[in-house]
């Protein structure tokens, strides 16, 4: 089966105070600002080649507005449109959005607004397109190169996981299983990395975190230094996940949305027939936080 989604292309998050939070996203997290249009700011990591991958919209609450996946080819959008019709999923065809082409927008059983798109303005990354150096000078803050994945909550995770598997053809890389065999949580992929999306139990439409890539242990510790120097609230880490083997640092933005710098450099490669790894419920501690071997109080209960 070919994969038709190249990556998580966009996460849009709500901000309680856009001026305040934009300062944090630009100078502490260190994303690049593409544009600010009214109540929304469009951002990206320095190594992303399209116009934006992260949007921040002022609201009276925190949490996720939408997640959008980019298809590999333009035709894949037609392929998914047919699948949405075949499975009776109600969707809207959105002709265009800021610097983006047509998208299919629908509500997943988890209560999240999900979009599929292919076209977005190709702006290039922060390096010259000819004879580039390895990284741009003058970056601020943590400066992650790109968005990696998101983790969201669902009241019936099994149903939501099945939707992404069946309708959108995501595959399972890892799953947490109850003694009765029920899937409690799952990590789903299309791009050959451990996950583009993960789903855990919780309220409908809940946003647990969005993760940005860091590419070395040094970068992970430097991220923790920068957050602490700016008195940002760190939730957990630096540490390592049992699930995905990625190194991790969880922290909150000023509106209380959780973010992660994820070290996929320690994770494994996917192959088309890679089978899902199973974690039993009694091992949830090391599955999530490998070194401490137990969950902290906030990981399961605190999200927006």
């Amino acid at each position, binding site marked *: 089966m070919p994969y038709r989604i190249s990556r998580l292309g966009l996460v849009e998050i709500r901000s309680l105070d856009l001026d305040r939070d934009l300062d944090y996203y630009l100078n502490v997290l260190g994303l690049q600002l593409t544009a600010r249009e009214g109540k929304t700011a469009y951002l990206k990591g320095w190594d992303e080649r399209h116009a934006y991958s992260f949007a921040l919209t002022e609201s009276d*609450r*925190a949490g996720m507005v939408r997640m959008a996946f980019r298809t590999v080819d333009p035709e894949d959008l037609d392929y998914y449109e047919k699948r949405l019709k075949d499975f009776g999923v109600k969707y809207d065809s959105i002709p265009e959005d800021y610097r983006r082409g047509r998208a299919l927008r629908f509500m997943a059983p988890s209560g999240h607004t999900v979009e599929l798109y292919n076209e977005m303005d190709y702006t290039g990354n922060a390096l010259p397109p000819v004879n580039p150096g390895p990284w741009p000078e003058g970056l601020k803050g943590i400066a992650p190169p790109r968005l990696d994945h998101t983790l969201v909550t669902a009241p019936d995770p099994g149903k939501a996981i099945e939707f992404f598997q069946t309708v959108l053809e995501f595959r399972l890389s890892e799953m947490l299983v109850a003694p009765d065999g029920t899937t409690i949580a799952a990590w789903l992929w299309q791009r050959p990395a451990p996950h583009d999306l993960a789903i855990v139990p919780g309220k409908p439409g809940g946003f647990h975190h969005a993760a940005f890539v860091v590419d070395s242990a040094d970068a992970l510790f430097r991220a923790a230094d920068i957050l602490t120097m700016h008195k940002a609230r760190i939730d957990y880490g630096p540490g390592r996940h049992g699930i995905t083997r990625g190194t991790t640092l969880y922290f909150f933005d000023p509106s209380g949305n959780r973010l992660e710098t994820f070290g996929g450099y320690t994770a494994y490669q996917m192959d088309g027939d890679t089978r899902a790894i199973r974690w039993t419920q009694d091992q949830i501690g090391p599955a999530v936080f490998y070194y401490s071997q137990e969950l902290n109080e*906030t990981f399961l209960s605190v999200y927006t």
Partner: protein
Amino acid sequence: MLAAILRSGASVMFGCRGGGCGTCKMRLASGQIAHGRCSAAVLPEEEKQCGWFLSCQARALSNLTIELSAANKYRVLRSWHTTITDRAR
């Protein structure tokens, strides 16, 4: 207010410290506060009227008396299938 409570040595539950998650919600018995910026999803106007506030965002404007609920003090959350003690409504 959360910072003051923690400085006093009291142990209370809190989450994001950004007014977004609602974990640190408490109830005012008497006194005046300024709420600060809080998510309307976790602290609706009706709750504010009943004295609820998010301690991570609120500032004291007078001497206060606060009611702590069980949810402010202790929760056991070690697995997604473990019973979750109700948060303060």
